[in-house]
């Protein structure tokens, strides 16, 4: 019984982290058919930003977390203004943007290495201590991750469905020309989407580094997982990505306990392949697949 509770706690913590990482990616792909290969580095930038704010500037952790999130948004904005903007209407955008953002990732990761070195710093933006719940001791930071993940993702989901700003993002995603005919400034929408995705990545980075460490390449693994989660959920399905991430976190924790820790990720990926072969548009995606 205690073990099951432990698995649920671990699974939700993992899931919340995965969700934070994937929702931003899903949003960008969903809106502009762009896979941001620098997403993982954005996470690292957010994490280092918070670290810098708390450790060097001595800001309180809540402000530092906010600093990390804002920095993520700034980098997202810069990506749009300096790179994406010029590529939007080119042929092969989907492939070219992959390479361009990969280049951005290499560049930014190297800059992080130059600025902070490779020393694995401790992320000061975290809450220490534990609480006991039903015989299981839970670190407060796990709850903080769940809370931040849940809050941000609900805010995004609410914003997308309930506000006119969200409506314009969804409209641009579904039909860019039609959205422009309604008076939506698609370029501005893309900018806003990249800012939001950058902020989410920043938050994810702070959370992930709080339970591992800071390093310039800390985002690589989470970003690859986020990539995979977006596929299972159905490309561009933001809510789907959140739910899938939680489910996969729970599955991974259960597999780690019942089958063996090393099988967590491979089984998750096998599941991905099966899901995709059977349901090509993903669990939550709508059919937009060209079948011959």
């Amino acid at each position, binding site marked *: 019984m205690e073990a099951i509770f432990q698995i649920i706690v671990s699974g939700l913590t993992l899931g919340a982290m995965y969700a934070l990482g994937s929702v931003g990616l899903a949003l960008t792909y969903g809106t502009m058919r762009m896979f941001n290969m620098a997403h993982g580095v954005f996470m690292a930038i957010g994490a280092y930003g918070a670290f810098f704010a708390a450790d060097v500037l001595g800001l309180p952790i809540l402000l530092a977390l906010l600093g990390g999130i804002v920095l993520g948004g700034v980098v997202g904005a810069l990506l749009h203004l300096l790179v994406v903007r010029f590529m939007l209407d080119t042929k092969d955008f989907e492939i070219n943007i992959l390479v361009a953002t990969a280049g951005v990732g290499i560049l930014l990761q190297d800059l992080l290495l130059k600025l902070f070195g490779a020393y694995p710093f401790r992320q000061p933006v975290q809450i220490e201590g534990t609480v006991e719940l039903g015989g299981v001791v839970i670190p407060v930071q796990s709850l903080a991750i769940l809370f931040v993940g849940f809050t941000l993702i609900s805010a995004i989901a609410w914003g997308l469905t309930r506000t*006119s700003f969200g*409506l*314009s993002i*969804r*409209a641009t995603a*579904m*039909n860019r*020309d*039609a*959205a*422009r*005919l*309604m*008076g*939506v*400034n*698609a370029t501005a929408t893309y900018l806003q989407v990249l800012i939001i995705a950058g902020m989410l990545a920043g938050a994810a980075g702070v959370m992930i580094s709080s339970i591992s460490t800071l390093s310039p390449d800390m985002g690589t693994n989470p970003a690859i997982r986020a990539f995979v989660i977006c596929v299972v959920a159905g490309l561009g399905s933001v809510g789907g990505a959140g739910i899938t991430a939680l489910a996969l976190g729970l599955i991974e924790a259960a597999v780690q306990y019942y089958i063996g820790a090393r099988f967590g990720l491979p089984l998750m990926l096998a599941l991905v392949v099966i899901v995709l072969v059977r349901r090509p548009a993903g669990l939550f995606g*709508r059919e937009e697949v060209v079948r011959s």
Partner: protein
Amino acid sequence: MADLLSVRNLCSGYGHIPVLHDVSFSLPREGVSAIIGPNGHGKTTLLRTLSGLNRSWSGQIEFDGAPIPQSVEARARAGLVHVPQGDQLFMDMTVMENLAMGAYARPKGYDLQTGFAEVFDLFPRLAERRQQRVSSLSGGERRMVGIGRGMMAGGKLLMIDEPSLGLAPIVIEQVYDALRKLASTGAAILVVEENPSRIETVAERFFLMDGGKFEWTGDTEALRNSSDIVATYLGG
């Protein structure tokens, strides 16, 4: 008062292939105008160029007494509403959300309910389907959403591309009834239609487009008297 829309020597095309050749015309602030003519001769290109979806190569467009803004979205905000061919709806949104998008450019204080009421008054069928996803609607219903979405913008000129395209005759009737009702409110409407007989009783001004040029222009009466010209271009 000046014309609502005035176009001079407009040229445009796709890639390197010109489609529109020196098109000039103007529209008054009220009433229904129609562009008729065979398919593939530039009618849709003209609307797309007016709304900015296609770049204009040369020529001037004046809208509402001023040179028309550059971008698609700015033209929409200026009140030039384009209901594109093939509906171009937001397929994963509900009927209400699509309509709400139509009013996107309106000022903040605008009450969507007034707009919804007008649209549902014109297309009662949509009221029943208001919470359904557009992807689950029939072709006719989608067309109604498209026109309704255009109405929601409350623009100065409503341009509708081929409202009857691909619909069953009985549905075409319904759509044209609605257009007629809309026209009776005095709104300025520009309709593109291949078949002049459908639009004959709705519009009061006609432009016959062929080979990317206006070959003939006239009012309803002139159209009736010039059936031979029309027949030449439309093959019947």
